[in-house]
């Protein structure tokens, strides 16, 4: 299918020229199209931040909620209607900062959603404060002497918590990013795609060049089924691996575990109230 079916007409994209988010938007549209998905089948869920504006720049259902809470919204959307393809997108502050607790717990649930994090290692929308992934020493208007807190390590935390799909991509590489997103969408259960995204306005450290110099793609030998190896890889900080770092296809998803969709795939809004059962229930109060 043609990615342009996801184009929204007459819009004024609010990102800075050169922002990595443009590439991620393209990669996402491409991935959806190549998987044969259409705008009415997809819900893009986001919070607040530059990356989180994404659903306003493409055509599909969208739920643009609060800063940090997109994973909770998305979990409920998917649990209320598992027929929808739910993609959650947001920035590093959104997902790992304000939303840190939901991040951990969405992993625990293994909700069947795809979580794309545009990780520019800075708060873009609020003009350049440190994010949880900003490197030590990173100077900003608030972190005047540089970041002192150990950066958040999303991949190792995700693997430690048994996330069932953990990948990293780089916005500078549209093709490969699209392929990784495709695999994440195809994965059943929670999938994390942390995307290194240059912010040309506020992050002068982690630039396109920096990412090029400090990343490498995992080769085919990499055994993405090995959790121990994967976590050790995720702990590495000299050079950052790109690709699918860990994958576990054996776990049931949250929606499956709920039980109510095992024999009936209809979304909640299509189901009727069961008066007979209700009368039985009332009788139990006698």
């Amino acid at each position, binding site marked *: 299918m043609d990615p342009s079916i996801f184009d929204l007409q007459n*819009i004024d994209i609010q990102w800075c020229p050169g922002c990595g988010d443009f590439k991620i938007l393209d990669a996402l549209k491409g991935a959806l199209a190549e998987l044969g998905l259409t*705008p*009415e*089948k997809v*819900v893009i*869920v986001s919070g*607040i931040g530059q990356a989180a*504006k994404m*659903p*306003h720049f493409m*055509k*599909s*259902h*969208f*739920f*643009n*909620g*609060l800063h940090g*809470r997109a994973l*909770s*919204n*998305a*979990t*409920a*959307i998917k*649990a*209320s*209607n598992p*027929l*929808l393809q739910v993609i959650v997108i947001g920035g590093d502050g959104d997902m790992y900062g304000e939303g840190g*607790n*939901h991040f*951990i*717990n969405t992993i625990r649930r293994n909700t069947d959603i795809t979580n794309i994090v545009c990780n520019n290692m800075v708060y873009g929308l609020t003009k350049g404060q440190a994010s949880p992934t900003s490197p030590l020493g990173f100077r900003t208007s608030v972190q005047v002497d540089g970041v002192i807190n150990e950066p958040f390590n999303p991949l190792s935390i995700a693997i430690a918590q048994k996330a069932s799909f953990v990948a990293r991509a780089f916005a500078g590489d549209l093709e490969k990013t699209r392929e990784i997103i495709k695999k994440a969408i195809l994965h059943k259960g929670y999938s994390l795609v942390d995307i290194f995204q240059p912010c040309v306005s506020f992050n002068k450290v982690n630039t396109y060049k920096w990412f090029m110099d400090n990343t490498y793609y995992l080769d085919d030998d990499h055994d993405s089924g090995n959790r121990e190896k994967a976590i050790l890889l995720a702990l590495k900080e000299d050079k950052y691996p790109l690709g699918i770092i860990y994958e576990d296809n054996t776990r049931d998803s949250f929606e499956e575990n*709920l*039980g*109510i969709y095992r024999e*009936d795939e209809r*979304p*909640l*809004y299509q*189901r009727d*109230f*069961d*008066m007979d*059962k*209700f*009368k039985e*229930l*009332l009788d139990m*109060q*006698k």
Partner: protein
Amino acid sequence: MVNYREPEACDFSVVLCGAAGQGIKTVETLVVKVMKRAGYNVFASREYMSRVRGGNNSTEIRISSVRVSAVVDRIDMLLALNGGIRKNIRDRISDSTVIVGDKEELGGEVDSLSGQFYNVDLIRLAKEAGGAVYSNVVAAGIMFGLCKVPIQEVKKFFNVFFLSKGEGVVKNNLVAMEKGFLIGERMGSSGLISLDLEPDPGVKEELLMDGSEAVSLGAIAGGCNFIASYPMSPATGVLAFLSKHAKSFSIVAEQIEDEIAAINMAVGAGYAGARAMVSTSGGGFALMSEGLSLAGIMETPVVIHLGQRPGPATGMATRTEQADLELALYSGHGEFPRIILAPATIEDGFWLTQRAFNLADKFQTQVIILTDQYFLNSFYNIPAIDTGMIFIDRYIVEADKDYRRYIMSDNGISPRSVPGHGMGIVGADSHEHDEWGHVQEDFELRVRMVDKRLRKMREIEKETVEPLFFGPPDFNNLVISWGSTYPMVMETAKLLRSADTAFLHLRQIWPLSEEIRNNLSRASKVIVLEGNATGQFSKLIRRETGIEANHLVLNYSGLQFSSEDVYRYLDKILD
């Protein structure tokens, strides 16, 4: 403390007290269910400490020939399972209270109590039945014996009730009960306690539920199929009830990591077409404040059960209060319509919650069910529920290709679709947005959208739940109360000598019914009775009508007003 009423032979008030872990709650359920099946009207209300073992908790049980739904101070019989009877119980003991207990267990405490002490070797008897843990069931047996419940009926019930615990347990319980039963019969014939209870076969078929069950059943009957909540006293019961019946009623029930996730899940679920609710108490609700605002701008239906307890902060975790009214009214930043319902009775708990889901979907708004610990943990028999009155209105449309989620409309309501229903795109946005839901920084659009959302309030006002009125049409004094205090106020209202006093009890807190304005303008003295320290409802009334209450009757001790409390306060004011 003086009782305003003498013991009544046809309305027997028993208090059972003992440590957490001594099975007070089990006995409460047991006694009330058996008595109801025997045709007696029953009422029970628990008060308990925030601990799992030890301390001293109590339950007040009324067994009556007439309907009873209020908590009273009067104790006709006190069954004390252990020592350390707390002041709130001691203060309620009068000279005519019969105190049943084990002298050995209670020790010197016995002498410090007024009332008539009746010694029962509870512990010995319990041990004979299988262990000290059975002392609660001995106590239950005493009540059955006193009330002359046919013992066969009791046995039948025990066999079913304890079935899952195994034969041994059933037997021990039966033995314990029978030992108590004999004592009860003996007490009855001794004339120490004389009861004149008239069973009513109609009662047998009635329903017995506490506030928590009423709200839960109301939710299911309202088509609720999504609940995300975090345990918090006194609101956890609703989560547990819905979880238990989740599979039967296609409910997604999830205990989440924190209350912020709860409300955000509910909003997500509402967007996707579920009928979503959360159940929490003040602290959890406070955390939901931002999420409530999200639902407000997104116009997503959400039902919030807010079971109040005394604050601020952790306050008194297992106690009651009505002090979160203002929080419910104003929580969330920015301006958006909302509905607040406060059940007065168990029936209300059911019907208002049922209705809440229709209102939420109809007006695409947030409905708060404002209850409290007293309400949630109290129960009495009510007539069968007319299931023919249960309607579930969905108000969901199919989205055509040009669908606009926030299309302008006269009454502010835009037809609501959900993603996947039809070919149109369904958007939802936390920013100020255009008709499609896309973020737009347009000052005129902003004004239009604010107006559209607030316009819904006018529609909502048309469906306000009417207050309950009791008293002469040509009154001078008007007593206003709201929510869970209703049974106590009404029980009192019937006794007050003041002929020119009327009672107006609100079940919808926001928006307020016009009735209140009409009645207020006719009153020369306005008395507002509520369970908080600052008179929050009276302030709301003044804000809306300009009328200031002449008297406030406030209670913020952590316990509910008893009927006697209400009587005493009002009697003084109306004197």
